[in-house]
């Protein structure tokens, strides 16, 4: 059995909008182990993003506990929260969230700038390595507006990778991308997962969820399904198939 990375106990989140309370997450219990590849699915408004933000320490729960890599995060102060985000989590957003007017390389270096442990000496070299892993070394001096959506998302993934996090969390990473580019991103995720990196991602499309090894389904803020996939789809094969099809179509 692999090591436990994530465990939530009765995790709940209630948003307050003026007088109205919106219960977005209701007592979710969830355990995720090292080197898992989990897809979270569910209808719009079912609480997927809310859960991801809590797992990513970007937001604080209203109730319940969250253990990340053995640490009880509900007992942490703000600065320790920041350190956890920096050291243990790589977050990939649907909207990329790259710094504008800042090169790909500088964007990838950003988490290293806030690394107080200073375990990585050569920021430059390390960032280039991360860009190599996502296959973007030829574009590292470009700024986001000079990159395609898929390339921007790969920069964001390189940024998530650069600090060697315990886990990569991706909230609809392909939501803004076309299907070919999306499959390319899943290729990258499968590759990283094969290297032993734990990945949790949200997706709307069942086809894409099949690239993962486990599917969790949410409904009305609750976890309603949690199942292992016996045989995941291989994104590399899928990509080749789509490309062949489009060539046929062009003829």
């Amino acid at each position, binding site marked *: 059995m692999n090591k436990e990375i994530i465990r939530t106990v009765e995790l709940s989140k209630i948003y307050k909008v003026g007088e109205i309370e919106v219960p977005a997450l209701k007592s979710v219990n969830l355990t995720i182990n090292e080197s898992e590849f989990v897809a979270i699915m569910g209808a719009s408004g079912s609480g997927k993003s809310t859960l991801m*933000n809590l797992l*990513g320490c*970007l*937001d*604080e729960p209203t109730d319940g506990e969250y253990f990340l890599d053995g640490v009880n995060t509900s007992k942490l102060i*703000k*600065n320790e929260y*920041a*350190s*956890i*985000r*920096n*050291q243990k989590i790589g*977050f990939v*957003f649907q909207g990329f*969230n*790259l*710094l*504008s*007017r*800042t090169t790909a390389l500088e964007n990838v270096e*950003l*988490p290293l*700038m*806030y*690394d107080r442990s200073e375990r990585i000496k050569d920021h430059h070299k390390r960032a280039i390595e991360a860009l190599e892993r996502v296959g973007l070394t030829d574009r590292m001096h470009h700024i986001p507006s000079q990159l395609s959506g898929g390339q921007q998302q790969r920069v964001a993934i390189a*940024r998530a990778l650069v*600090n060697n996090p315990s886990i990569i969390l991706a909230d609809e990473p392909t939501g803004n991308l076309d299907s070919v580019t999306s499959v390319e991103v899943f290729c990258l995720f499968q590759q990283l997962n094969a290297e032993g990196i734990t990945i949790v991602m949200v997706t709307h499309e069942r086809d894409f969820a099949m690239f993962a090894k486990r599917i969790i389904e949410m409904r009305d803020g609750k976890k309603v399904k949690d199942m292992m996939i016996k045989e995941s789809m291989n994104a590399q094969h899928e990509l080749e198939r789509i490309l062949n099809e489009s060539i046929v179509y062009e003829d």
Partner: protein
Amino acid sequence: MKARVILKAAIKSILKSRMRSLLTALGIIIGVAAVVVMVAIGDGAQLTVEEQIASLGSNLIIITPGTSSTGGVRGGMGTFNRFTLDDVEKIKNEATLIKGVSPLVRSGGQIIGGTGNWFTQIQGVSEDYLEIRSWGLQSGEFFTERDITAKAKVCVLGSEVVENLFPDEDPIGQQVRIRNVPFKVIGVLKSKGQTAVGESNDDIILAPSKTVLDRLSGGRFISSIQVSAASSDKNSAAQAELKSIMRESHRLEEGEDDDFTIKDQSDIAEAATETSRVLTYLLASVAGVSLIVGGIGIMNIMLVSVTERTREIGIRLSVGARASDILVQFLTEAVVLSLSGGIIGVLFSILVTYLINNYTDQVAYIKPQIVAIAFIFAGAIGIFFGFYPAKKAAALNPIDALRYE
């Protein structure tokens, strides 16, 4: 993070949004430059006035007829006991704490001579007058006690009179007719510029007091008595002495009010500096307004960019920046921007004052403390509006900062 890294990041960030940085700095540049230049012009004017007052004569004391009440309002000027040469004679014989004394007989009129005619004021004075006023001669000589006793028809011209009557020739030895009385020109005064109250000290003709009394003003009364104290620290003692001499001369009983007023430079200076101080205040308030306008400009730009910057802060927080990291970054940015804007503003104002001093007849003088005040004020505005929104954003949850609209 090391200070060098922080500074580098701040400068990078400033250069990244050139337009925003430029506009912010511009607000500070204009604010600082406006304040410094405006106040420099005001201070320059004040300085000019002070210099002119000093040139009135270092120990000058002026006695005028009429009382002055304690409140400074003069009453009954010239209604009784006007001055005569006897008063001057008595001061000359009895005063011990003075260097010189001269009557001042004012007259005026048409001067004909040289190339044409000119209308100016004629002052009848004694041989001590030049020294009393600390004036100098450009050429020729001044009249002597003998000229006065003899009621000689000689005169000394101010430089402006020379310019108008003798533009191309040496006036010394020439004749001018003052109200039809022929006078021989024996000297020319050095140019002195304007007086504190704005009249020209150069548009003037000096002649022996008795000659002017006899030939021009027609009477025995003189306008005022001008005295110079032996030294500036004897000034008040000399004034007391003059007071008792004048009271005796006018036969005033014990308890009777003075029928004359003794003034020294400080009284005159006060009136003149008061005028220029009003000017300085006026200019300073104009400058203050431009500083506020500049400040509002900075504020606007900073507030407009808050959305963009809040997202940036959200991104930084989400990859592990602490609130303190964000604050240090934004504070450094604001300081670098304000400082460079302030420096450019000061350099700009130095350039402008240089131009004013060299290409206009205004004088501008930059006081270091004004530079400091403008600098600090503009800097504080820049820093506050650069820093305060960042402080608010850094306190948010990363996800709220990312969602900010």
